[in-house]
């Protein structure tokens, strides 16, 4: 079966972002960018399904500027077969991203679509669910285990109280949580091979999707910062402070 994987280019998770002085957004100039960590897990899961003989072809899709080709190439080096970049310099919001993916799903007819549960820039946690609704598919969100059996997929989900398993008819959407797998590193020969794999370029207009957003960012600010407090000498002083100064125990 065909598996479609969405990968987003985001700020590297190790980088601490800075808000722009004019409060229009965060400063991304000269900042290290990378594949969203949850999307790495999505790619890894697809590759494992292929290694198990469950998946026959892995297509990676990204929406973003031309440089997002880098993240698609990374996914190709990890084992995906071909890539599609929906090129736009606009900031595409989740509903519009879901509509773009829906257009690709209509064309490619995958049996499984794997996305990250959340992009670590917007922290939205929406796109997979929205795609599933638009495509009329079932969804296994925050997945820690994915088992394809016949025309169904069983997904174990990380929920607030523990773990919950659902069975979904295929085709279905899965969004990845951190413990689904541990992504591998791309080997040098595979990075070289990935350069020759097909990467199709398209645009929102080609796919017939209007990416105008209904949410306007009014301003972006620094969070209220906590200042470091004091160091206590020992446990006795800690307990004394908690009782008499902070009055929390």
């Amino acid at each position: 079966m065909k598996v479609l994987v969405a990968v987003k280019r985001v700020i590297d998770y190790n980088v601490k972002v800075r808000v722009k002085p004019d409060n229009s957004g965060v400063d991304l100039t000269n900042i290290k960018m990378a594949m969203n960590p949850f999307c790495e897990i999505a790619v890894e899961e697809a590759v494992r399904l292929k290694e198990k003989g469950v998946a026959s072809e892995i297509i990676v899709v990204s929406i973003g500027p031309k440089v997002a080709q880098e993240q698609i190439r990374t996914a190709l080096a990890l084992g995906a077969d071909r890539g599609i970049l929906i090129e736009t310099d606009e900031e595409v919001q989740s509903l519009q991203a879901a509509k773009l993916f829906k257009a690709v799903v209509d064309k490619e007819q995958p049996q499984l679509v794997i996305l990250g549960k959340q992009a670590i820039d917007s922290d939205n946690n929406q796109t997979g669910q929205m795609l599933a609704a638009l495509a009329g598919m079932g969804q296994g969100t925050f997945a820690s285990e994915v088992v394809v059996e016949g025309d169904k997929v069983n997904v174990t989900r990380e929920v607030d109280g523990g773990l919950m398993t659902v069975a979904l008819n295929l085709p279905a959407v899965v969004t990845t949580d951190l413990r689904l797998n541990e992504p591998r590193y791309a080997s040098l020969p595979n990075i070289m091979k990935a350069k020759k794999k097909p990467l199709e370029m398209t645009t929102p207009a080609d796919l017939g999707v209007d990416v105008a957003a209904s949410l306007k960012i009014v301003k972006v600010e620094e969070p209220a910062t906590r200042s470091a407090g004091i160091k206590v000498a020992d446990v006795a002083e800690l307990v004394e402070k908690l009782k008499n100064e902070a009055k929390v125990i």
Partner: protein
Amino acid sequence: MSILVIADHDNASIKPVTLNVLAAAKAIGGDIDVLIAGDGCGAAAEAAAKAEGVAKVLVTDNAVYGHSLAENLSLLVADLGKGYSHILTSAGTTGKDFLPRVAALLDVAQISDIIKVESADTFVRPIYAGNAVATVQSSDGIKVITVRGTGFDPVSGEGGSAPVEAIDNVQDAGISSFVGEEMAKSDRPELTAAKIIISGGRGMQNGDNFKILESVADKLGAGVGASRAAVDAGFVPNDMQVGQTGKIVAPDLYIAVGISGAIQHLAGMSGSKVIVAINKDEDAPIFSVADYGLVADLFEAVPELDAAL
């Protein structure tokens, strides 16, 4: 303005976070209806009727809503929600699962994880793991919103007497089913509602060592949390993870033990009133947010703390 709040509940009662979501609804202003969708959820509906500021409780009691499967629940909420200006639920794993589907079905954006209401169309939410805070304005006809409970002081859960109205609206998408669950059993308070939390990180070395934290927790009536490193290493189950991608907590007192203080962890706990860090590395980033830092070996300091309580 009219607001539909979808309650978090376990059929028998409403979860405390629903009272925080109601506070967000109150800040928007307008009539507030609460939906209880479940299987055998009459008692939860009665509980919701007592909450402050509720105009009406709608109940859909049917097996198809039994495990809050997103495919079914989203059809129901999109159908009922058409008549409202705002649809709100908590940003727990149930809300995060079904509400984006509702937004897509209504062809509107979802505003995730709000921590403040500026006006009926403008909201504040953290982005980039809480390293920036965005104010966003929506031009959609229906505002679909998940609420971060810790951003709002709860309304009272007592004193109200809203009418309860049963609704016959069965939506079965027929594409998903519940297989099973493994819920953590604990007598300790739920992390998102706990007044005191003690969390352990990789420094705990193994799951057995969490016993020393549990002993302190029992004395303080505290919940026990963990960093992702501790969960990934298999010391403790996933529902204990605090952070950007785990639970967001804001207790009166948060004690971080053997946790370095990565930004993804801080994103989940830096809203705590008082933070204590116990770490043997005096340069650990956790000390930069701690009100009281203790540089010490946790295997000495925690038993001492236990004895001192």
